[in-house]
């Protein structure tokens, strides 16, 4: 393939990944690394470098829209970013030291988990929980616009959430993904933050988390401009389009299709990792 053909095809694939990732809320970065390594035979280290850069673009590009709606909580975000950035540094440090086949296996496991999580029914429980003293001291409790005016919420289990966020940061630094799935798990499930606040605050944090490991990747020569260019521009374009049509689209069947794609890619990554093809 010539550089022109390669750039064009990768840009189209990245655009579709960004669009589907944004429409389904599963994130586009998670499918990019397996697509690049399995179908384009890109070395996983170049793929991770390009994906990490695109993650910063989508997170920052979408943040402005989410922030205006008033769902994201910047205090929760800033506090938990302490955990994700330290985790991301550790992840990037590990990524330069462990074999690429191990990276592929961890990536495969992460994809299977994301596919599982996306099929789990989401129950928005009535959450009139009493305030947690630590969360109150840290001023994490907040409110968001709801159908009957602003609704307040009390954040729970701060240490558990902080620990999970460290893990999310480490995975992000290790695999070059946003690891939004783990961030939402920490905020929605552990800290009992309403789902919409969790997803938008997670998106807000992803860019800072990725920036913490991007320096390490760049200085190690993992970020190739020829590859990162179509990936970043494609994903950014797709996700911006996706966030515009998000309200009207019927995403249920789309989510099913996308989670099957994630499942298949996860199995393929595990196979390639175990049989030493990556």
């Amino acid at each position, binding site marked *: 393939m010539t550089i022109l053909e390669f750039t064009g095809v990768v840009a189209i694939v990245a655009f579709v990944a960004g669009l589907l990732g944004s429409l389904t809320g599963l994130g586009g970065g998670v499918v990019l690394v397996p697509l690049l390594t399995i179908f384009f035979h890109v070395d996983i280290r170049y793929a991770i470098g390009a994906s990490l850069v695109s993650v910063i673009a989508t997170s920052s590009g979408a943040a402005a829209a989410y922030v205006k709606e008033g769902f994201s909580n910047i205090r929760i975000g800033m506090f938990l970013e302490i955990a994700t950035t330290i985790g991301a540094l550790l992840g990037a440090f590990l990524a330069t030291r462990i074999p690429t086949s191990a990276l592929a296996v961890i990536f495969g496991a992460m994809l299977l988990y994301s596919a599982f999580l996306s099929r789990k029914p989401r129950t928005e429980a009535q959450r009139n929980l009493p305030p947690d003293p630590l969360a109150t001291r840290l001023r994490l409790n907040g409110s968001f616009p709801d159908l009957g005016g602003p609704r307040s919420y009390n954040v729970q289990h701060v240490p558990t959430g902080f620990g999970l966020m460290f893990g999310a940061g480490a995975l992000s630094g290790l695999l070059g993904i946003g690891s939004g799935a783990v961030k939402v798990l920490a905020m929605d499930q552990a800290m009992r933050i309403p789902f919409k606040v969790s997803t938008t605050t997670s998106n807000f944090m992803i860019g800072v988390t990725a920036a913490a490991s991007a320096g390490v990747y760049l200085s190690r020569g993992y970020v190739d*401009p020829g590859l990162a260019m179509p990936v970043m521009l494609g994903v950014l374009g797709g996700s911006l389009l996706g966030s515009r049509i998000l309200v009207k689209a019927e995403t249920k069947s789309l989510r099913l299709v996308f989670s099957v794609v994630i499942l298949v890619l996860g199995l393929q990554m595990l196979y390639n990792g175990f049989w030493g093809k990556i």
Partner: protein
Amino acid sequence: MPAAQAPARQSHPFKPQPWRDRRIEIILGNLLRTGVLISAAVVLSGACVYLSRHAHEPADYRVFRGEPSEYRTIRGVIQIVMNGRGRGLIQLGLLLLIATPIARVAFSVAGFAIERDRLYVAFTLIVLTILLYSLLGSGIGL
């Protein structure tokens, strides 16, 4: 402004976030979007130069060689941009992209300082220190 109506709910036992948070959030959101658009424009212009010169050469990323050393530092990237290389311009756009969330954190420090929120000034400074340590400690600032 919905956040301003929250104190009316007496059942709510603690102070909601002050309304200024919303203003800071919106400025932060716009800062992020501007940073992304500028870096995307720089990457795109670099792509035009790069593709116009190398379109018909073979693309091969199968073997990891690592980027040449001038693509790994800020000073090196500025040097190759001066030499008029498209790949250098793309890399400059990517550096601007990485700088965007860092600028967001730096701005948050100022925002919380204006609110006289010492706890969150401290938290934000910790995050900023980690980010700068990552950038400078990894050697790309040299």
